[in-house]
């Protein structure tokens, strides 16, 4: 189905609307702060609307994953084509966008989080123009990764996020912002290089025959890379279960594991989270981490099914370690943001465990957990942000008795916390349930150990609640103001989603069910 506005596909719109906003902002004078904010809000708001349209128009039955025919809202234009010369075939890079059940939920998530991020950025006063310019660029990068089906395009969007993030953390962040920013940059850059090299190796190993001319064309098309028939003889990554394929899988995996972040590639996250300004923490935890697991599912799994199966235990084990390790580390923190950062590691471990199950429940659970965790951590970071705005403090010991002082805030924040704790009736539970269900089918003991993570999680979340919200209100906190309408506005959509998806997750699961089932079949079937 084609959805077009002014002859341009809806996916292009949703990706590049922020760029339009960015250019508009660049043209405005610095002083016009409110106009800048409003433009950012409008740009991301339009994205939310477009995401809504996509949600409504999305065909839930189509499979996607490796089948170009069943991708939706596809846009494919030749971007760079260099005709063949005697020594090498045609070079082809396409502007190739499309979504399937795997990506649609991520698009919705990205648009929502981006929009909320803008609202929560409202009180940023330092270099407003620069801030929103970078912010919108970042949003385009994120959105682009989720819709790109050409590896080259995917990579460009992937790396486009780096620099804005570096500045957003480095310029608007906390006291150790520089350290955090460079650490983030370095880690992801290393991953990016690994991905670049793998991408090139894939490019040269994959060639499809152009039906029109009969030429053999090297391509960055991700879908072509999934077809074993397209691998040229003697290519570096041709064949099945070769060492180079394992190496390539590993390289990609490390790249994505850094983003996820999976133990032991996680140490950038606590620093980045702690130092980043609230909206950026929200984006970081809400969307950026999901890029890692999304990448695994979009690239590692279908392109290297053999290697995926080979490494799957390893992956599941890392997932388990992340769950337990993240949870314990979270418990040991006395910085509110750091605690949430480590809880993210733990929760993303559940995603990894779920998708490593290689069955539909696990996969659905994992992807749903990506979405849910995005929403939940967004709430948590917004909660910290609210307190930080008022007190300039983040230490757990700095608070207490907030519940008396800010009842509305406490209510909303506690829902987020309970969702993080996996309380049934809230969305976190559903995805954790399915992840564990799937994982348990595949790995009994790993799962059992992982499930102990939820006990630890309960521990640190309740402990945090007790520290921050309960108890007597100390003297210094007695004049805190409860949430402003703007702040409520940024919480409410997320809270509504938390509850809705907790009670009735079907709308979300329906979107991805068929795609993910197909992905599971595809991978376990060795890519056939």
């Amino acid at each position, binding site marked *: 189905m084609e959805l077009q506005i002014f002859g341009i596909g809806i996916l292009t719109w949703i990706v590049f609307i922020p760029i339009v906003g960015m250019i508009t902002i660049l043209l405005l004078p610095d002083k016009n702060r409110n106009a800048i904010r409003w433009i950012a809000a409008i740009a991301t708001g339009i994205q939310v609307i477009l995401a809504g349209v996509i949600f409504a128009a999305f065909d839930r039955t189509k499979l996607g994953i490796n089948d170009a025919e069943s991708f939706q809202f596809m846009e494919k234009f030749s971007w760079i084509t260099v005709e063949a010369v005697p020594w090498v075939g045609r070079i082809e890079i396409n502007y190739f966008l499309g979504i399937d059940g795997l990506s649609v939920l991520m698009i919705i998530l990205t648009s929502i989080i981006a929009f909320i991020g803008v609202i929560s950025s409202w009180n940023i006063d330092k270099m407003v123009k620069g801030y929103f310019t970078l912010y919108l660029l970042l949003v385009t990068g994120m959105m682009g990764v989720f819709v790109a089906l050409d590896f080259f395009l995917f990579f460009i969007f992937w790396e486009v996020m780096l620099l804005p993030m570096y500045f957003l953390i480095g310029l608007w962040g906390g006291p*150790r912002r*520089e*350290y955090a920013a*460079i*650490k983030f940059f*370095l880690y992801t850059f290393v991953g990016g290089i690994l991905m670049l090299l793998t991408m090139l190796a894939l490019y040269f190993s994959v060639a499809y025959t152009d039906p029109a001319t009969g030429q053999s064309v090297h391509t960055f098309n991700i879908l072509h890379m999934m077809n074993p028939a397209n691998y040229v003889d003697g290519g570096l990554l041709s064949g099945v279960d070769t060492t180079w394929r394992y190496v390539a899988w590993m390289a990609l995996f490390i790249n994505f594991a850094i983003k996820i972040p999976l*133990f*032991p590639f*996680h*140490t950038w996250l606590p620093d980045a989270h702690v130092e980043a300004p609230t909206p950026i923490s929200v984006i970081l935890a809400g969307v950026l981490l999901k890029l890692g697991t999304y990448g695994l599912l979009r690239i590692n799994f279908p392109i290297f099914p053999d290697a995926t199966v080979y490494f799957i235990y390893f992956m599941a084990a890392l997932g388990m370690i992340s769950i337990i*390790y993240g949870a*314990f*580390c979270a*418990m*040991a*923190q006395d910085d509110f943001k750091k605690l949430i950062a480590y809880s993210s590691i733990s929760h993303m471990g559940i995603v990894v465990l779920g998708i490593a199950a290689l*069955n*539909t*429940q696990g996969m*659905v659970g994992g992807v749903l957990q990506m979405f849910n965790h995005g929403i939940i951590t967004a709430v948590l970071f917004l909660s910290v942000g609210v307190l930080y705005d008022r007190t300039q403090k983040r230490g757990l010991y700095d608070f207490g*008795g907030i*519940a008396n002082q800010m009842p509305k805030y406490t*209510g909303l924040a506690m829902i987020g916390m*309970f969702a993080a704790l996996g*309380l*049934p*009736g809230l969305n976190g*539970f*559903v995805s954790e*349930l*399915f992840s*564990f*269900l799937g994982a*348990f*089918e595949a790995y009994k003991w790993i*799962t*059992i150990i992982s*499930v*102990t993570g*939820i*006990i*630890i999680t*309960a*521990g640190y979340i*309740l*402990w945090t609640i*007790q520290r921050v*919200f*309960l*108890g*007597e209100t100390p003297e210094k906190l007695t004049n805190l103001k409860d949430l402003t309408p703007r702040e409520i506005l940024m919480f409410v959509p997320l809270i509504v989603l938390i509850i809705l998806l907790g009670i*009735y*997750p*079907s709308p979300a*699961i*329906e979107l991805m*069910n068929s795609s*993910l*089932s197909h992905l*599971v079949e595809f991978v376990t079937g060795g890519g056939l």
Partner: protein
Amino acid sequence: MFIELPLIILLLPLLAFVLMIFFGNKLPRQGDWLATGMMTITLLLSIVLLITKVGFYSSETITSNFDWVVVGSKSIGFGIMIDNLAAIMLVVVTLVSTLVHLFSMGYMKGDVRYSRYFAYLGLFSFSMLGIVLTNNILLMYVFWELVGISSYLLIGHWYEKKSASNAANKAFIVNRVGDFGMFIGILILFISFSSFTFEAIFESINAGQLPFGSEGWLTAAGILIFCGAVGKSAQFPLHVWLPDAMEGPTPVSALIHAATMVAAGVYLVARIFPMLTADALLVIAYIGAITALIAATIAITQFDIKKVLAYSTISQLGYMIMALGVGAYTAGFMHLVTHAAFKAGLFLGAGSVIFAMHASLHKLHDHSTDAQDIRNMGGLKSKMPITYWTFLIFTLAISGIPLTSGFLSKDEILAGTLAFSTLYGHWLLPLIGFVVAGLTAFYMFRLLILTFHGKPVSEKIQNGVSESPKVMTIPLMILAALSLFFFYSFNPFGAASGWFYTAVERPLSVVPELLQPATYALFYEAVSSVHSTAMILSILIAAAGVLMAVAVYQWKKISADDLAKRAGFLYKGSVNKWYFDEVYNIVFVSGSHVVMRALRWFDETIIDGIVNGAATVTKVFASVSGWIDTNIVDGLVNGTASTANRAGGLLSHIQTGKVQTYLLFVLFSFLVLFVLIL
């Protein structure tokens, strides 16, 4: 009707919760009438449902199901199941809840978060009703956790007190430990049978399917799910949260102990009873017995009125679990119902006393005296007659004195254990059963006597005490009435002939024959044969317990202190609750603290350290020599890339600035390269 009515029953408390949360503060009287009113409607509807169900459709199990989600090709449904068990339980829950609502209107008057309190009560009731009504173990788990969270909210209602929030945390986390097992059990069931509904699971097992093809896993699944009950019903070894939960308002304790939270565990075991293997049941029975004994021994020495009641609850729950374990299904469940009434009554009575004590102490401006310590009471009988008399009835009931409901159910349980031991041995179970019966009678009368009889410890306090308002005493009277035998069976000495026994029958086991416990017929035969023995024994033992208590505390014939001294370490252990909290603290709390600190250290030092290379070393060096720029990114450049940087430093040393040295290098490398390519 069997779909709409339960749904309304289920959702009314939720509606009350939502309304109270959003509008409670704005309503007149902070909306207590709204919450109570809605709960009363729920109660009435439940009674209607019970009568209809038991009266007209007694043998049917009514279920309805709808698809919740479809994952892959498996669809997961949610639904409602009404059988007699559920119908009876509905009434118990709604009844206790309604009375607690009513009582709270008096007890909680003037509380800072009055409307919030009622909202949470609604949520609590909703969650419990969900457990009761569901046909599905997953949905049960969902409500299970909701019960956990609402109890968390209620126990921590006075969260300004650190002890209250600690208790709330403890309750939730300890429960989580149990739920962990339950969760794994659920996973096993779903993986094996692709369904969450009890019906489908039982059918699959009945058809000979076993989890992972092994009988051991079936037993394991049963025990794992029972773990959930261990947590919620405060069974050994997870019973530690319950006494602490007394930090919540007393009506909440009544609700938790009587009808909602702790009952859920027993209800769960009853629900999954058909799939439990004989081995699993034996484990359950022993867990119950141990719990009953431990709690009873602790209760003897406690002085906090609510603590005594708390331990008695644990003990009674152990009874119920033990009953289910030995196969005395109906008796166990019946004890749940009868216990609900008298235990709710006991707590509300205690609440009434505490309320009065508080009022009196408040008048005296005495804030140091503990209003809940029975050593500060005594002689309240005259001041609070209604409370006293109802309390007496409850005490008689819990002690298993004939003509009370407690006698009926406890007698059947003891008969059941006795029968079980005649069939399989395991004499320990009936032995514990009888010992606990005696202990129960003893400590309950001790409580009664110390609180209401004798001379007041302090005249001043006693003078200030007065009977509680009607809104509090009426629930007590209703519950007292319900603690009498005729509600359950018209034969005061045999429950088996009552409507209850016909309504609630032990379901058929679905597990493979070799793993099954004794069939119902066989078991029932055994029970009949030992019934009179059990009855006589239980009456005697209860009487002995009562007599002992009266002798020690009323007549002071025997000195309590002497007894304590003579018991020695037993007394000490009992007073200190057998050191469970201390041991857990050391093993789990400190243990996990150690682990988490270690991991944090590991994370910040090793993992990050590897990344930062010799960053730490460099930093230490920097602070010593003080010449390295303390600037952070420089630190990073000097750190993360310290090796790189050092190499860079070396390389820039080569860059001496002397052109001849450069040329030397050039020619040298020329020679080296030449040697290399040869």
